[in-house]
């Protein structure tokens, strides 16, 4: 914890702002139900009410409080993005490390497999898979992860290849060090910052990807994420001819943009810190 605070202190003003924003959204996602006066799944006022003292962000066509929906959506977006990032980083770094460490035929097979996944067009395949598996948070996480690990695998492999060329690895191997020893002592400390950065970047991307899937109607209709709120709003006939878009469309959109921007700003901050570009 102390380390993180020192980290934030040393960050640039923009980085600090991004971090504050992210913390706010995380708090929102955790304590969402306590922060909103109204339930997120029951109508609590008239339909399509403009923002007022009562309903801070107004209501949707069913009269459900939008602030409550955004709070709840934050949680779902967070769960999905973190889930995707964890899974993708897990798979990606595992394949990258094995491939870079072992080299030879194992490296060849794993990397060709990775290439194959990269070649697949992402969105169409995601739509197909999304439709095929059916909409649920779990399935969305799996589908999104399937396409996010490839970059991570390649980056970790590249880093590992440079580490493996170092003489100290050769010497440690000469002394008969096991993979476990070499990984824990020599590799982990160098590979971890990269994985953290990948994690953050994947989180940002997963939020957008989930939103776009939901926006296309492939999300889980029972778990109302920000993308789904947006999807519902856009589905409303002639939304742009009415003033409703000012709160109904704008609020989930702004929430998404703020989250993604803050995450990518933190990512950039880390990139500068570790002095590498991805």
């Amino acid at each position, binding site marked *: 914890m102390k380390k993180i605070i020192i980290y934030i202190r040393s960050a640039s003003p923009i980085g600090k702002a991004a971090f504050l924003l992210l913390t706010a959204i995380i708090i929102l996602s955790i304590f969402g139900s306590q922060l909103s006066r109204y339930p997120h799944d029951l109508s609590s006022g008239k339909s399509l009410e403009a923002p007022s003292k009562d309903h801070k962000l107004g209501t949707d066509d069913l009269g459900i409080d939008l602030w409550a929906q955004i709070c709840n959506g934050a949680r779902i977006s967070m769960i999905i993005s973190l889930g995707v990032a964890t899974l993708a980083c897990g798979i990606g770094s595992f394949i990258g490390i094995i491939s870079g460490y072992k080299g030879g035929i194992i490296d060849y097979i794993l990397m060709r497999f990775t290439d194959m996944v990269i070649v697949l067009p992402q969105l169409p395949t995601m739509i197909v898979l999304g439709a095929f598996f059916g909409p649920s948070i779990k399935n969305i996480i799996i589908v999104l992860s399937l396409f996010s690990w490839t970059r991570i695998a390649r980056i970790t492999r590249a880093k590992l290849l440079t580490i493996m060329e170092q003489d*100290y690895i050769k*010497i440690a191997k000469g002394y008969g060090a096991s993979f476990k*020893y070499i990984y824990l002592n*020599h590799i982990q400390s160098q590979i971890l910052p990269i994985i953290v950065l990948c994690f953050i970047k994947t989180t940002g991307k997963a939020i957008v990807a989930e939103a776009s899937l939901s926006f296309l109607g492939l999300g889980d209709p029972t778990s109302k994420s920000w993308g789904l709120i947006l999807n519902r709003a856009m589905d409303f006939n002639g939304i742009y001819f009415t003033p409703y878009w000012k709160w109904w469309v704008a609020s989930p959109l702004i929430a998404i943009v703020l989250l993604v921007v803050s995450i990518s700003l933190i990512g950039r901050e880390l990139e500068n810190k570790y002095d590498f570009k991805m």
Partner: protein
Amino acid sequence: MKKELLKVKDLKISYFLDSEVKEAVKGVSFTLYEGETIGIIGESGSGKTSIAMSIMGLLTNAKIEGKIIYDGIKFNTLRQKELNRYRWNEVAIVFQNRLDVLNPVLTIREQIEEVLKKHTMKSKGDIKKRVKELFSMVNLEEKWLSSYAHELSGGMRQKVLIAMALSCNPKLLIIDEPTSSLDVLSKREIINLLKSIQKKNNISMLVISHELPVIQELTTKVEVLYLGHILEEGLTRDLINNPMHVYTRGLINSSCDINVYKELWGISPKINLKSGNGCPFYQRCVQASKECTQKLPRLSYISIERKVACNKGGIVTILETKDLSKAFKSHGSKIYACKNVSINVKAGEVAALIGASGSGKTTTAKIISGFLKSDSGSIYFEGKEIHGCEAMRKIHGIQIIFQDPFSAINGDFTVEKAVKEPLEILNIGSEEERKAMVKKALQDVQMPFDNEGLDIRCNTLSGGERQRISIARSLVMKPKLLIADEITSMLDPSTKANILRLLKGLQNEKGFSMLFITHDLPLARKIADKVYVMNRGSIVEEGNALEIFNKPKCQYTKKLFKECFHMTV
């Protein structure tokens, strides 16, 4: 068959000091044939002069055991009066040149005449003639005859001493340190004089000296003496070119007359006077083992005309490679990086592998240390064949130091962790023992070894310091062979000099052997005992460093040296 002139058998000399008996010579045997010259070399205190004095019967307050047989007569059982018949007439001694050897109140003439009077009983005229004759024999002007000892220079006094010794035409001349404390020109003069006298009169000589060039010029056979024991015996030229005892090699390496290029390092002084029953040299020996602390080695033949007193039969070979070959495939053709490479490294020796870049030096080093697999050939470490990195994984094995200090040490590691790494991987010792070993190794490479120093991160250290850390990491395994692959090529001149001196000092102190790989010829000339020249994967020339640097035979070596030393070979 030549006639035995002097035979010393199992000679033991003990001095009676106030309360104890001190043995100065412990069972020395050698034989001097007629017309032969034998040299006795050794550090001071090894008993050289005691032997000379005992032959002359000049030792008082000492017990002499064993046999000294001169021409069939047992010298050490004769009484002083009988002995006087032989002294000067048969056996004469040239004393070590000091001011007090000559009587300060008598002139030179009187002193020489005194000898002649006592031993030859000639008439006065004959004596005068003989003195003049002697003076011309040693190239001294007659005017000095009437001067006193203190009026003469060191060289002149030495000549007077020689003249005195020659006065009665002895058959055996014992010469004790004939040239010490003389300048170069006088030295040369004395050596030439002794040489011509020896030739002309066909006298036998026993030359005692710690100066190897003197021995080299005057003698045909050498006895190497240490603490009253003969450790090696052999023909002078052979012995100096190829010493077979660690002590002899140490003596030769400490001589700047022989090693004109090399840095000088004496034999490490680790004297603990309690020697026990074991080999007298074991405390300072680089290849000593437990056996040596208990068993006294006997002087025995290891080849024709060469005797060595060592439990291991002389200097052992640490590393031997036989016909190592390695080819790399490139564009469908085979390129030999290493072709039938055979290398020999003896205990405590620095062998340099030199050659241009791309000649296969590093490939050879990698094969020996086990990082590369050779296509054919075998490697023997201490007589046993080794495969892969197995020699690297044990204490007293082979260790390697790489060229790039930044790549060789993980910058994220603390100094302690970096040095401790081999111990941790191989699970050697307890946690405290490891820490102690690390501290010792850091102390050896002159890095801070307190707790603060141990916690320094390696990425805050400079290249030279990191190279020290990687040396420490190797030393922690107490290697018997250290392979140093271009370890100084990335360092600035001052750091380079420091690292090299450090490494050479450690080598001298700990006695490990080193295979020093470099393209830096002046550097190799400074530190190598033995040189291998590599070109296109094969060894084109090998041998004693001095010989190769002075008289390279191979065309490629000649070209290399010509470029490097601007010498015309």
